[in-house]
């Protein structure tokens, strides 16, 4: 009996050892993909790579549904020096921070001697966001920017052109509200909850006045512009253009309420377009999208979004992972994702590609918006900058502090972080 059992164990042990050595020849890559960016379509792109590279198996890990939640998860994995993740998708604001923490591997070696010219293929903003002190710390996955969505049917009905300025928007919203007399119809929806989106809420009018938050790594805070920006949003609430509880509204709330037909104008990212055209949408074929309005006498400004592929410094398969990321960050995959997932391309030429313009015609108009979109401050301490701005915006919109008080607090706290 015992002999038999020993033999069985030995055989089992041998089998395990054998299968392990088979697995040695194969590389398993584990990739973190944000759940809001169509992991199902990314999976198809991964399958295409596996088909060409028999020795590589790619597994998807996904979770969280906001940029903050995903960052919290990845921060935990990285501080634990966990080797189980090889590749992770990062919000455009994070590569600089991850590089400073030593959590990602630079691509300079695999990009060849002239990494800078390799990065020139991308839209300039993405080349910049992924390069820290000459090191390419991540490669762009896709682009994004904020747009103004509007109800084409309602504007046409009341003979209104899409607004060029925020004042025009307020006037248009009032005109439609007076005529429609629909208590459920909001004039404008934007992000007032203390989330990452509220940082862009603050920056849109601020940038539109030609001001910068950070110049040459130093804080260049313009208090007057900050007060005006906070006041612009607060006035929308006070005048009834935006709803009273706007301080509760997150990005996807804006999307859902617009999709339900309860919003005239909405500030949102490009992902909302696909959802508005979906089967469950009450506003299918009634939606227009244009660049965001400007402040009176200013230039229109949009917030640069987009996500990047980074390779973990704790990965055991860095070389294979970098090769895979180079494939993911190629014009072919960019085109594939534009057509199948409506993700904006990070390469300028993909916007005008015939197949892309056929699948997503509005991308042709999106290109100038993405090209002129401004990047949020690139700093390793971005999380602190973000927290200061979004809690202030949230507090002002909730009426906890006046725009003047908010701007003063913001300046004081930002000075401590960005000395």
């Amino acid at each position, binding site marked *: 009996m015992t002999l038999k059992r020993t033999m069985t164990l030995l055989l089992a042990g041998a089998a395990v050892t054998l299968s392990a050595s088979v697995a040695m020849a194969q590389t398993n890559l584990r990739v973190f993909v944000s759940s809001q960016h169509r992991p199902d379509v990314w999976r198809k792109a991964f399958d295409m790579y596996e088909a060409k590279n028999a020795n590589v198996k790619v597994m998807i890990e996904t979770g969280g549904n906001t940029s*903050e939640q995903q*960052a*919290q998860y990845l*921060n*935990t994995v990285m*501080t634990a020096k966990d080797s189980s993740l090889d590749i992770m998708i990062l919000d455009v604001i994070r590569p600089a*921070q991850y590089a*400073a*923490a*030593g959590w990602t591997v630079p691509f300079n070696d695999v990009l060849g001697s002239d990494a800078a010219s390799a990065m020139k293929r991308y839209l300039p903003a993405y080349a910049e966001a992924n390069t820290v002190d000459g090191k390419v710390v991540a490669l762009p996955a896709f682009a994004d920017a904020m747009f103004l969505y509007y109800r084409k049917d309602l504007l046409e009905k009341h003979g209104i052109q899409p607004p060029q300025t925020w004042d025009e928007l307020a006037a248009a919203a009032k005109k439609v509200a007076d005529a429609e007399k629909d208590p459920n119809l909001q004039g404008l929806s934007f992000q007032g*909850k*203390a989330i990452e989106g509220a940082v862009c809420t603050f920056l849109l009018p601020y940038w539109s006045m030609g001001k910068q938050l950070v110049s040459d790594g130093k804080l260049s805070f313009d208090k007057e512009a900050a007060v005006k920006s906070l006041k612009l949003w607060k006035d929308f609430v006070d005048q009834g253009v935006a709803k*009273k*509880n706007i*301080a*509760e509204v997150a990005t996807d709330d804006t999307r859902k309420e617009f999709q339900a037909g309860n919003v005239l104008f909405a500030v949102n990212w490009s992902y909302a377009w696909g959802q508005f055209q979906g089967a469950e949408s009450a506003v299918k074929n009634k939606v227009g999208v244009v660049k965001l309005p400007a402040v009176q006498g200013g230039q229109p400004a949009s917030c640069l979004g987009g996500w990047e592929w980074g390779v973990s410094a704790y990965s055991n398969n860095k070389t294979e992972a970098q090769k895979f990321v180079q494939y993911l960050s190629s014009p072919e995959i960019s085109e594939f994702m534009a057509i199948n997932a409506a993700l904006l391309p990070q390469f300028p030429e993909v916007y005008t590609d015939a197949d892309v313009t056929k699948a997503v015609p509005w991308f042709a108009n999106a290109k100038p918006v993405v090209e002129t979109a401004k990047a949020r401050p690139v700093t*390793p*301490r971005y*999380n*602190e900058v973000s*927290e200061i701005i979004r*809690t*202030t915006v*949230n*507090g002002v*919109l*909730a*009426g*906890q*502090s006046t725009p003047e008080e908010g701007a003063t607090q913001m300046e004081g706290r930002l000075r401590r972080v960005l000395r």
Partner: protein
Amino acid sequence: MATASETTLVTTHNESGTKWWTRFLDPSERTLAVLLLMPAALLLTLIIVYPVCRLIWTSFQNLSLTSGVPATFAGLENYTLVLEDPVFWETTWNTVLITLITVPGALLVGLALALMANLPFNVKWPVRLSLLIPWALPLSFAGLIFAWFFHSEYGVVNDVLRRLGIEGVIWFNSANWAFAAICLTIIWKTSSFMALIILAGLQTIPRSLYEAADVDGAGRLRQFFEITLPLLKPAIVVALIFRTITALQTFDIPFTMTRGGPGTSTSTLAMYIHQNTVDFLDLGYGSALAVVMFALSMGVTAVYLRMIRAKG
């Protein structure tokens, strides 16, 4: 017989002084005690003593993962920064306020629930089950559920108010209402824990005391204050200690309900520590904050322990 001969054998070895380990075969009471305590002590060292020492050590360092520079010794710098930090004072005040409101609140509600559950119903399980459910629910679930309840447009609270003809408030738009919503949620969530401990205490009070009081002509109210409450004291103190310490560490419910908003008006000290370490990756500063919170909890525990000892 066998044991006796083994003992002799061991003793012989010991006398010859060769095998040191043989004394573990027949340990003295003292050695046995040390041996039996060893696993627990090792485990505690590993999961409590080591991390606490490491935390204190980190709190004296400039260690921020976003700075890109290695850690340097900072002395008391982090602690000076803590004392000068207005957000630290705000979050500490919020934490203390939550403790002062929710601990007595949960005690009163819990006591009432326990007395109700102890009534001589024929069927006891529905009452006891409804006591257990809030206790068994994870804190963050409770927070998320109540965040929906208090949502100004889609929430059930404002809906009920509207049906009663009262204009609801935008709960999370005002520091005071948001704070009230959080406190109500915490009281709902924690009073069942209080009730469970008090119920256990109630069941240890002998019936005969009440029967004797009936004979002596004491009313129900008198019975409650003269018999029930004094005999419940040990159970109440235990419940208070547990609840106060967890109240000082309040994190999940405000985190899931308001994320500390509007502004930072409902943020707690534990949330601020989490923000500095996990979000800002400033481990030195975060550790200093955690040491301060640790000291605060230790202080409160010491006060309670002294109270118990004085009673004993």
